[in-house]
């Protein structure tokens, strides 16, 4: 019987748990870590089931190579040689930028680092990206501009000290349950709660104010709140004076956002906006929490700017119980960004375009770096269809289900010359692959994840990988060596040492220091205790910058042909494309098929009964799912989770992109529904 | 964990006994009748109203009521509606297939309490399958009972289960058998009664003091039916009903079929009305 302390593989909250095994190689359960500052002896339902998929019989156990149209078992050397040889060929014929690398927010920091190194100096391209493009790319772009750092400014524990929480576009109790529960505990001790979300999510039942604004009108709402804060004189003049710049421009931009105009745009009552402004403006310490409801819009960066403006306007930055707190989705999406698995930056957000940065990395890695920023993941599929991107290396992602506009992705994957997929299970994406490489999952290897509160913490091997599956860092090391780069790392700890040497914000991080509950970056040197709260004396960029934004409507709104607004997201039971949770018995039993939430009045109008099969169509696709009648969704809006291949929400969604961050508009598109 | 050879007796209360599928008959578009025989030729040994756990490797088990009388020897019947993954897999099976069976489980219809009485046997929807075990028993032991009323309601003519049996029961001497459907599609040719099963009770001549009512149907059927029975003067102590729950183990351990302090798989599925009517969520 063994108990292995490790980090949960699901969301970015970063709970730690013990994986329990029976001593004969079988995982038998999970127990939360009592001493960890976030989990505190507690877990959510996915955490309690974090062992359940690990030994599922579907696990990939041997490399597969496509021969005569079918994927067949192959040896590791054969598979890796083929990958290397085809990448070399395609690069020679079409240039290194015809190669595209997708890294993964599910694998460790060390592995993200190695893949980004492989892409950049192994194969000579900055075409490296990962699913942060689909979740918080808007945050990174927006907050780097306004504050200088694209991460959660405060810590989860700050919820114990705040007086007001504004949650906008986050179904926190389902998506970051141990943060959501901390909000509920805060309300129990008298902390006020404003929830801005069209859906009647669980948090809204505890809110002092629930703002059910129309999807896609967040800029108007936030500008309206700020306009009223100024009107009521509740802005923090001293903070604005000392710590910010560009206030006059903001002030001017807000003038037009009167409560009446904002009410007309958002569908709220004018006095709700004033009430929100008064509540937020008078709170001594207020925390802003947001997630995909803010970022996944064709104006996602503007949404983030507006959130940041509100925090700066009221001085809610740089102290306990405040801050701009984007809740990162994946267990290691923060880390994958930190590691530079992005087309424009290296580790610690050091810009590829900066010659001095490239020089430093070239010195460390012994090879020059390509200087032009690479393709964003969401642009890579267009490039594939245009013949510019010819080979994809996809590590632990399933874009066929996770990207907007599934038909577009499928067409692109069918068009390219060569596809490599590294994963733990066969996926909808690996079905298109020429080579499939079986990876160890989180329970079978060592490494670090960085949680949403910038906490770098260990995950640990509890049992060996199945069959011939290997840790991603081992697979990537083998490819680095084929590229002639030294990669004889004895283990991930040594990779972290290399990361620390080239990354100022990780400079003080090493495995011996991470034994218990990790360290929060920036942690620049070996004596530094880590940084729970950012922007304390001044912002990372110096002054906090107000970045005025105007309201732009979503790109596709309901009309006569497609009269309902489709909102997409996740449920509390499942994780993303379901590769893990749909193979976890209890989670799969709780929600075992695709569904769409419809308001009972809309359903009545369309003659749709509860649990009936319906067809949902958008301009991009059609799926059949079960109707769930509920007033959780507002009238005129429907909601679908994107977990289910048999009723894929992303067959419908719109791949209209934010011009700056390249994030697709997952949260708004137009559909029509007919009973089957 | 060492494998242990399987003796004749099941090695554990959780071990299914191998069972051969003899035949499959379509009952309705959603329901099929499966005739099964235990692999070793043994009798199932059940009583009317009991259920078995049908095991399909890979899909676990589902509780299914036995639809035949213990006196029809050599094999037993299960009427199965296609609803979930396991029952969908069952529907795809062909004769000769191997299944696993555990049971029989649960408290049967109380035959002693029924002896010598007029019986008002009421089934709704696929409730006719469990009731059929008692109906066959009544046919085989006709002299033990007084008047036998059989009322059956289904959603539509196509949803009527056991159509051949119904025809026999309607034409034969054994039962006063009445059938109704909720609705008839415009295209259908059906000349029987329409309306809810409660409607069949209206002009029924009952002797309340010597009648026991036995009800088996979907959950929404019970409350309206009980109101009518009360009006008809049937005492609550003379009403027996069979409840449907998601039994997983059949031996009172898994907890999925609990109704307050009762366990449907052991204390039921057949209950006397007064035993459960005061319990939250029972009806």
């Amino acid at each position, binding site marked *: *019987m063994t*108990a292995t*302390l490790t980090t949960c593989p699901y969301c970015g909250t970063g709970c730690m748990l*013990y994986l329990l095994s029976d001593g004969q190689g079988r995982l*038998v*359960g*999970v*127990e*939360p870590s*009592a*001493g960890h500052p976030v989990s505190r*002896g*507690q877990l959510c339902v996915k955490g*309690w089931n974090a062992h*359940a998929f690990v030994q599922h*019989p579907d696990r990939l156990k041997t490399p597969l190579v496509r021969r005569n149209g079918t994927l067949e078992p192959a040896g590791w050397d054969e598979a890796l040689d083929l990958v290397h040889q085809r990448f070399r060929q395609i690069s020679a014929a079409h240039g290194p930028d015809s190669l595209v690398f997708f890294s993964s927010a599910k694998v460790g920091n060390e592995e993200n680092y190695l893949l980004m190194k492989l892409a950049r100096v192994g194969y000579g391209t900055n075409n490296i990206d990962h699913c942060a493009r689909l979740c918080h790319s808007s945050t990174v772009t927006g907050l780097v501009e306004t504050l200088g750092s694209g991460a959660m400014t405060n810590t989860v524990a700050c919820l114990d000290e705040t007086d007001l929480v504004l949650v906008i576009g986050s179904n926190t109790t*389902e998506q970051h*349950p141990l943060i959501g*529960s901390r909000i*509920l505990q805060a309300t*129990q001790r008298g902390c006020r709660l404003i929830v801005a979300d069209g859906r009647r999510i669980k948090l809204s*039942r505890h809110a002092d104010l629930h703002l059910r604004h129309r999807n896609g009108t967040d800029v108007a709402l936030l500008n309206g709140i700020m306009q009223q804060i100024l009107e009521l004189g509740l802005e923090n003049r001293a903070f604005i004076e000392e710590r910010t710049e560009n206030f006059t421009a903001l002030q001017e931009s807000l003038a037009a956002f009167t409560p009446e105009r904002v009410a007309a745009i958002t569908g709220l009552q004018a006095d709700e906006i004033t009430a929100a402004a008064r509540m937020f403006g008078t709170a001594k310490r207020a925390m802003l929490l947001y997630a995909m409801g803010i970022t996944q819009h064709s104006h996602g960066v503007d949404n983030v700017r507006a959130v940041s403006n509100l925090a700066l306007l009221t001085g809610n930055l740089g102290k306990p119980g405040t801050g701009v707190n984007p809740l990162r989705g994946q267990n290691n999406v923060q880390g994958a960004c930190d590691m530079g698995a992005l087309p424009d930056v290296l580790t610690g957000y050091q810009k590829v375009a900066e010659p001095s940065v490239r020089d430093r990395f070239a010195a460390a890695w012994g090879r020059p770096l390509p200087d032009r920023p690479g393709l964003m993941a969401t642009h890579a599929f267009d490039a594939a269809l245009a013949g510019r991107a010819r080979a994809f290396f996809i590590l632990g992602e399933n874009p066929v289900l996770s990207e907007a506009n599934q038909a577009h992705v499928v067409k692109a994957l069918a068009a390219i010359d060569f596809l490599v997929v590294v994963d733990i299970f066969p996926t909808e994406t690996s079905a298109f692959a020429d080579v499939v490489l079986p990876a160890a999952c989180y329970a079978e290897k060592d490494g670090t994840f960085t949680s949403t509160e910038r906490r770098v913490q260990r995950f640990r091997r509890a049992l060996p990988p199945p069959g011939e599956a290997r840790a991603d860092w081992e697979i990537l090391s083998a490819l680095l060596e084929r590229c002639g780069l030294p990669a004889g790392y004895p283990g991930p700890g040594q990779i972290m040492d290399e990361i620390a040497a080239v990354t100022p914000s990780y400079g003080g991080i090493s495995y011996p220091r991470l034994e*218990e*509950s990790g360290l929060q970056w920036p942690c620049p040197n070996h004596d530094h205790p880590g940084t729970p709260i950012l922007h304390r004396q001044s912002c990372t960029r110096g002054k906090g910058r107000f970045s005025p934004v105007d309201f732009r409507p979503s790109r596709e709104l309901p009309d006569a042909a497609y009269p309902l607004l489709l909102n997409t997201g996740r449920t509390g039971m499942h994780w993303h494309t379901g590769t893990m949770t749909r193979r976890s018995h*209890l989670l799969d*039993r*709780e*929600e075992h098929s695709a569904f769409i939430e419809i308001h009972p009045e809309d359903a009545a109008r369309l003659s749709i009964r509860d649990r009936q099969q319906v067809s949902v169509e958008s301009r991009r696709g059609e799926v059949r799912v079960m109707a769930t009648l509920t007033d959780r969704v507002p009238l005129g809006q429907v909601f679908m989770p994107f977990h289910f291949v048999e009723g894929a929400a992303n067959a419908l969604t719109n791949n209209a992109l934010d011009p700056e961050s390249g994030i697709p508009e997952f949260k708004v598109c137009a559909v029509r529904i007919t009973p089957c | 964990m060492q494998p*242990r*050879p399987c003796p004749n007796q099941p*090695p*554990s*209360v*959780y*071990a*299914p006994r191998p069972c051969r599928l003899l035949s499959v008959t379509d009952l309705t578009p959603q329901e099929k009748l499966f005739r099964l025989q235990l*692999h070793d030729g043994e009798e199932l040994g059940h009583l009317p109203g009991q259920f078995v756990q049908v095991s399909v*490797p*890979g899909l*676990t088990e589902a509780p299914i009521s036995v639809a035949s009388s213990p006196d029809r020897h050599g094999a037993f019947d299960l009427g199965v509606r296609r*609803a*979930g993954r396991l029952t969908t897999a069952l529907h795809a099976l062909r004769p000769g297939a*191997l*299944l*696993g069976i555990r049971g029989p489980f649960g408290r049967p219809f109380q035959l002693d309490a029924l002896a010598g009485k007029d019986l008002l046997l009421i089934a709704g929807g696929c409730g006719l399958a469990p009731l059929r075990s008692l109906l066959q028993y009544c046919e085989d032991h006709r002299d033990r009972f007084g008047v036998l009323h059989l009322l059956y309601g289904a959603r539509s003519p196509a949803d009527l289960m056991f159509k051949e049996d119904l025809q026999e029961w309607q034409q034969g001497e054994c039962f006063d058998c009445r059938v109704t459907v909720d609705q008839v599609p415009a295209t259908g040719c059906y000349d029987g009664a329409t309306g809810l099963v409660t409607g069949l009770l209206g002009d029924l001549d009952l002797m309340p003091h010597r009648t026991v009512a036995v009800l088996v149907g*979907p*959950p929404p059927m019970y409350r309206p039916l009980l109101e009518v029975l009360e009006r008809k003067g049937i005492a609550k102590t003379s009403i027996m009903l069979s409840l*449907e729950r*998601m039994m*997983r183990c059949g*031996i*009172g*351990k*898994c907890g*999925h079929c609990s109704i*307050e*302090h*009762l366990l449907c798989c052991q204390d039921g599925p057949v209950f006397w009305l007064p035993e459960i009517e005061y319990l*939250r969520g*029972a009806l």
Partner: protein
Amino acid sequence: MLKRLDRADLEKLLAALATGYRLLTPQRLADGTRLHRPHGEGALALQGEPVQRKPTEAFFPQHDPLLRIGEQGEVTTCDPPDRPVALFGLNAADLACIAFIDRFFADPPADDHYLARRKDALLVGLTGFAGPGGDFLPPANGMCDLELLALGQNWLGVPWTPRGEALLEGFPDGEQAEVEELQETARTRGNPAQDLLEKAAGLVASEVVPDDFWREIGDRCILCSGCNLACPTCTCFCVEDRQEQAATLRSRVWDSCQFDAFMREASGHNPLGTEALRTRRRIHHKLAADVTRWGEFGCLLCGRCDRVCPTGIGIQAVAAEILARFGA
């Protein structure tokens, strides 16, 4: 027979236990979690809060392989490990919980799978001054093979079964008066949590708690299922099949009545179809239904659900709220 053990004696006793049993002792892990671990793996934590994971796990694990079904339907059961387990360091509540589920699984038709794991297992109580920081824990007065009553640096050893007696053979005798003193301490301290639970149970059983209350508590539930998974008297399980080569491995897995699918039927019908009903079930089952069926509360006040609940609606918290609102 009453014995008095010093630290060296205790080590001797543990060594003796470790020869015949798979001995599990409470240990404090690096992150602060107190768990039952194989003896000798880490340092003993003889004082502290109850071990975090429910001790009944030793006989009814979270994922519990029941049997294998071969291609021809042949069944092989999964036998228990060769050596029986010895659980050391259980407080009175945990021992009562084990006794509770012993009776549950033995009730005919008995659960042979559980009984095979439980049969030769040995239980060692650890009470007296063995709580967090040396706080007092009331004596168990039975329900185990032997009980150690912590006095500070020493332990009184009380055997409750012949096996317990044999294990204590040879240690120096103890003073009965010291046991009496501990019993007296327990009596004077009383059990306020038990009193609270009984009062709340009375209100629940007499149905004076309205549905609105259950809805409100349900609104605070984030559906982690931790309360059920942490509860030593929760025995509900679901069944999972996995294909392993040609065979099917059938296991049982801890389940939670807080899931919508717990009682949902394939037709969609669900007797526990709302959060309010499921919340009521969680509390009512322990405080009322178990009393009707088994003559005893299903909550023995181990405190685990209150500790594991991320939103503060464990059974003692809910009982206190019931009493505060409907107890007048």
